[in-house]
């Protein structure tokens, strides 16, 4: 049974009893923005000009007024900072807020950082303390020991993150360079595949494409990247052997 717009609209009234619909086989309209998910990802791949800079260089550039250098630090460490906050407060929204606040504090107190090579560990200490402050504020009168018994993590040492060794990352930079040269929609499909781990069907739903078009697009992107990345490797493992009992 198909519903006209008016019928469907009428069914939306909160006071009215909802209508029962019959089971029917139909394909979704791929051009319908709601059926295809209704939003696009805000996730991006780091391909900015500061990608090869060390933390130390970025901190120094920030100290000399380069805001984009600090953006790079935010992009570089936001996942680690968010995860650390989440580990303490177990609340995604609060963790997101705490993570942003930690970056604000880090920016504010950056001149106090004695050794700019230790930015990552220092940042982790800030987020840990910010998160614990949040928890204490939420649970006034509850001791830290009790909080730990209830699952909150104790403060960690400050060496949780390793300083990036850029000399070991040349291959990674080559890939990032190749990704940077791609079209935006190609990068987006890579994000959906490798970051959001979506299946072809889910990518198709999100982008309003057919499943076969997703397959073809990913194949094109792969072909492009493969040609850009000239260094080849031989996969490990052995040929399959088969045995019938």
């Amino acid at each position, binding site marked *: 049974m198909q519903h006209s717009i008016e019928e469907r609209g009428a069914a939306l009234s909160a006071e009215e009893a909802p209508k029962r619909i019959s089971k029917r086989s139909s394909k979704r*309209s791929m051009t319908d923005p709601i059926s295809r998910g209704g939003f696009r990802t805000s996730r991006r791949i780091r391909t900015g000009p500061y990608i090869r800079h060390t933390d130390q260089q970025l901190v120094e550039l920030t100290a000399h007024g380069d805001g984009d250098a600090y953006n790079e630090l935010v992009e570089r460490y936001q996942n680690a900072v968010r995860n650390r906050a989440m580990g303490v407060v177990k609340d995604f929204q609060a963790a997101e807020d705490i993570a942003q606040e930690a970056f604000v504090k880090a920016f504010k107190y950056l001149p106090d950082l004695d050794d700019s090579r230790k930015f990552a560990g220092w940042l982790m200490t800030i987020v840990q303390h910010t998160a614990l402050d949040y928890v204490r504020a939420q649970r006034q009168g509850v001791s830290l020991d009790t909080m730990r018994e209830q699952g909150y993590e104790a403060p960690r040492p400050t060496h949780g993150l390793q300083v990036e060794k850029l000399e070991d990352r040349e291959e990674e930079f080559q890939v990032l360079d190749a990704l940077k040269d791609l079209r935006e929609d190609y990068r987006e499909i890579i994000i959906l595949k490798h970051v959001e781990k979506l299946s072809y069907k889910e990518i198709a739903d999100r982008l309003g494409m057919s499943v076969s078009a997703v397959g073809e697009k990913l194949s094109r992107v792969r072909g492009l990247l493969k040609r850009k990345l000239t260094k080849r490797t031989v996969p490990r493992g052995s040929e399959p052997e088969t045995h019938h009992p």
Partner: protein
Amino acid sequence: MTAIQDDDRELLLSLYIDGELEAERIPLVEEKLRTDPLWKSEFEALRASEDKVSKTVESNWYDQEFTEKVAERLKTRKIQSWTSDAPPPREPSVLLRYLPWAAACAALLLFGLLVTTWYLQHNRKPGGTLGATVATVRMLDGSETELHAGELFTAEGAGACANVDGTLLWLRPGAQLTVQGARKVTLQNGEVLAVVRPDVVPFQIALPSQATVEALGTRFDVALNAQGVRVRVVEGHVQYKDGAKLVDLLGAQALGTDGALKRFDPREAALEWKELLVAPASNAPVQAEHAASLWPQVGGGPEHNGQTPASGPDVLKEGRLVPYPKVDNAADGGQYAPAVAGLDGTLFVLRPANDKSMQLWNYDDQAKSWTKCGAAVSGISQHAPVVTPKGLVVFGTSSGEVYAYSPREHKQAWQKNVGSSVFGVCAAYNGALLCSTYARLVALDAEGREAWSFDGFTDIQAPAAVGPDGTIYVASRSGKLAALDASGTPLRQTRVTLGTSELLFLPPVVAPSGKAWFTSTAGQIAAWSATGQLEPVGNAGRVALPLGLGVEAVGTKLRFADGSELDLKNAQEPLSALALDASGQLYASTPGTLWRVKLDAGGKRSGVPEAKPSASAEAAVPGGIMILPGKVIVTTPAGLVIHD
């Protein structure tokens, strides 16, 4: 069968790599890969490139909105506290440079919203608004239905799975819901399991009473019946609101129909929803992933709480023996470790190739064939491999190497040296692979990177186990016990007094209550409660696995929760393996026989025990009973014995 063309090589290989190739074309592509060097080299090049891209992207993505929000806060607070001679920081955000444009866009949007509101107010039928398609529902018979805003849907037949803006809602038969919008549904009746996606946007399940259940990045189920509302959170964070009442629920917490907040074992949800989650007509890869993540060690197994998430056969039949594949240069025909099963039922066993290496084989019961899918180049392994939610099979060896193989691609995914002999790998709820090494317990992530390690003991020789709340239990050979949180931080430690030459070699078993059971080589069992109380339980007579329900094996006797015993008089040898299925059937193995005893919910025996020949006169490997839907599989030194 459709032929394949060389012109389509890149596309077909791309689909093959992603596991999205139609089943009928897979053998054709695999044949090409075996026989055509061009296809093979192209595949290897694509694969290598894909590996690099995947690894790079996973470690280099960021959320642009996050960066913009940080910049906005800095701008709002005008933070410029630089003490050096340097000029004040420039505007740190790309967004801020475009703030005027953003403001203009916002104004336009607001205008559009006003116009739309005016239009709706003046043009709709009474009570109506636009009702666009907001969800697709897949019935378990494979058909699909579109849902529009405001329509009531009733799950019929075996149940259904609704995709509402990426969030998956599994509905039990009879469940009724109304989709209100992209991120909101109203549950009118019945039970729904929600897996919220994407995890950064709230998703709300409203109830007719005006109460709401709102979730972020989470898996939870809601049941609405005559008694009231029950909410159980498998993982993440859920907020229940009903008027002034506000309850925050975290993973492994439940809000009962009596309004009380209590703990619950997320595996209960896995057991209860398993049939819908792995229904053959459903979207298998997505659902299998979720099913697996509810159950840390795929295939279940007595390593965790003695209970498996599937039910065995309705009628117990004689077993059939599946001999192991012949391995060249094999040191002996022995079998060290139990087999495990992947989500699709594929069985995996480790076989000794010689006295210094192992091979990983899988068995396809439909094709009746064994396939070698990996090998350890050095060291032996005496524990079951673990299958991760992504389908990787992971095991460690005495050489200190941990290997991860992708059976589908016949390829090693990664290899990691953890420093000393590995005595077992176990999967935690968060996907961490817990490797028991002699010197420490090492947690690896899904890519084989070390996440943390616990080095409180220096003589670990048993796999770790994970409790219902995610607590990790590990024992040292000499009787030291530790409970760790998911990040490896010790929560509590104690020590069991062991007799001379008595050692702890077996993995702990954790009951739904959080009580952990430890069994020594002499059969002594100790129970360690979640509150830290240590109590001796008794002597099992010989190495045997206790069960979370309180059932123990003592020689040829089974001892039940109420203290009663059942002597399997025909058993000539002590029991060596036990398993409990989802329907309460207890399986026990003795050489040549598989026993089955029905238990009630409290762990007491009910009914008459059954016994069936097991087609192998050899004793089962300890812990070697695995239950898959409709079948029981016993690992013995002679081969796998399948009762189905």
